[in-house]
């Protein structure tokens, strides 16, 4: 009992520290306009942009989901998970600077602003905005579910709804204090703590289990089948592309001071993934020792409970919780800006911020509610996330390369790609284990290419 009290104290101290840091991030920026609130006026240097972008890699889903997925699904899972994140970085190395430059040309704060400027179609702007919001909806619930599971390990006398409500209030207060600056600054603490937690737990695993035992466990991991391979490779391709055009990732790019910063960061990001081999040690330890698990996704926490002293456990819990909260804050900000700038048109600057805060409140309430009631529906929506998000890729490429494609072809390609992907995913039509998103993307890219060929001489409208 005393041990849990120490763990709780460490956890609460770190959460309070995150709030203090969010407060500090407000310094010199107490009166923000919408550009500062959503994109820090494009003033962030390399470190803050790196921390914001890399936060996507180390979400609560990654930290808790990677060891669990590797344990249950074996090598195909590890190949898919590491493959798509890793390959997203070289794609981003070439694409992100172009997106940043297109954003500067269009004075964009959201990814839909890019479309508004480059394609004279209000319908396309609304379609991509609604799509993006729809596909991001489950992410709030996923973070909430992870937060409830993590904080639930403390066995505090609070119901899950109170815990989720507390997380929602904390997220809102960060954002209300200084917009995108808060998650960026809090990411600095979060990443330091995640690194410490993963390193501590790896050292503990290596101290408590022989290398031979861990190696034996790695050999008992499930191998891939031929069908797995086709699906894994097509999934890696669409998710690596989708990762770079995800609305929240694009919004983070607009916070950078220069395109060089954006490009240089991509070189370092794979090195940050060197924590995944350490996370895999948790899987191998659980497998080698037959560690009893308290839930499907709790391998990381269960290993921490078994091996770490109470302060270390508090650190691990705080790392998981901050990972969830930072991602949640980023998604809230992205949805808030999309509604206030792209769905509702023509709001004056001061009211965009107010509108975004209202949307953020509603989204947080929705996330708490769905975390309590719709745990079955949300994984389905998560499955379709990348099927839908990757369909933005051809259009984003047209914007970045200033390709002359009529908006009708872009809209038709985007909608056909989404309809084809989601239709194939849920109709059960056999596609030879190819990811349906891949087929949708080929159709989408084909229609855009047709538009390009049909209208090669028409200039891209600029603001």
């Amino acid at each position: 009992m005393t041990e849990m009290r120490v763990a709780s104290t460490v956890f609460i101290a770190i959460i309070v520290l995150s709030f203090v840091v969010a407060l500090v991030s407000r310094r010199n920026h107490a009166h923000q306009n919408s550009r500062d609130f959503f994109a820090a006026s494009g003033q962030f240097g390399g470190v803050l942009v790196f921390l914001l972008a890399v936060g996507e890699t180390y979400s609560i889903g990654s930290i808790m989901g990677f060891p669990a997925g590797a344990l249950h699904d074996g090598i195909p899972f590890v190949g898919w998970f590491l493959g798509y994140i890793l390959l997203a970085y070289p794609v981003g190395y070439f694409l992100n600077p172009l997106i940043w430059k297109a954003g500067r040309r269009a004075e964009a704060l959201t990814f839909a602003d890019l479309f508004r400027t480059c394609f004279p179609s209000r319908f396309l702007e609304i379609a991509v905005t609604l799509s993006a919001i729809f596909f991001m909806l489950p992410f709030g619930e996923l973070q909430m579910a992870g937060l409830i599971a993590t904080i639930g390990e403390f066995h505090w006398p609070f119901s899950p709804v109170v815990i989720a409500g507390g997380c929602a209030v904390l997220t809102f207060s960060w954002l209300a204090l200084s917009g995108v600056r808060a998650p960026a600054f809090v990411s600095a603490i979060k990443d330091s703590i995640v690194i410490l937690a993963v390193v501590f737990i790896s050292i503990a695993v290596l101290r408590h289990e022989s290398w031979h035992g861990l190696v034996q466990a790695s050999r008992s991991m499930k191998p891939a089948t031929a069908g797995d391979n086709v699906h894994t490779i097509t999934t890696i391709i669409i998710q690596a592309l989708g990762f770079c055009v995800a609305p929240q990732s694009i919004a983070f790019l607009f916070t950078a001071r220069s395109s060089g910063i954006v490009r240089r960061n991509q070189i370092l990001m794979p090195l940050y993934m060197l924590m995944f081999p350490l996370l895999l040690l948790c899987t191998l330890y659980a497998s080698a020792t037959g560690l009893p698990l308290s839930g499907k996704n709790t391998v990381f926490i269960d290993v921490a409970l078994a091996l770490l002293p109470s302060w270390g456990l508090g650190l691990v819990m705080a790392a998981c919780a901050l990972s969830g909260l930072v991602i949640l804050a980023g998604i809230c900000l992205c949805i808030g800006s999309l509604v206030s700038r792209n769905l509702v048109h023509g709001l004056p600057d001061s009211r965009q911020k107010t509108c975004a805060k209202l949307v953020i409140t509603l989204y947080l309430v929705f996330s708490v509610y769905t975390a309590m009631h719709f745990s079955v529906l949300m994984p389905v929506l998560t499955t379709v996330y990348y099927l839908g998000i990757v369909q933005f890729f051809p259009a984003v490429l047209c914007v970045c390369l200033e390709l002359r494609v009529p908006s009708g072809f872009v809209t038709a390609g985007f909608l056909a790609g989404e309809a084809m992907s989601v239709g194939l995913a849920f109709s059960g039509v056999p596609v030879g284990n190819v990811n349906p998103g891949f087929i949708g993307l080929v159709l989408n890219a084909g229609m855009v290419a047709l538009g390009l060929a049909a209208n090669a001489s028409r200039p891209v409208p600029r603001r």
Partner: protein
Amino acid sequence: MPAYSGFAVGLVLPFLAVLGPLPWLSSGTLVIGGIPAALVWLFACLPLTSLCMAVAWKLEKRDRQDRDD
């Protein structure tokens, strides 16, 4: 140095390195140091991908200098 060499090293090479051997390694029984070769190769690809992008960066920089000269 033409720009496409940076593109080949920075983008095409990492894709080939990860996706090329993955089907063969992840369904096979090959082990390196007792660990499945698929895991060893994927973990090796993490620093290798950084290296590829760093080389692409250098190539691009040299290309820009050549053009300026």
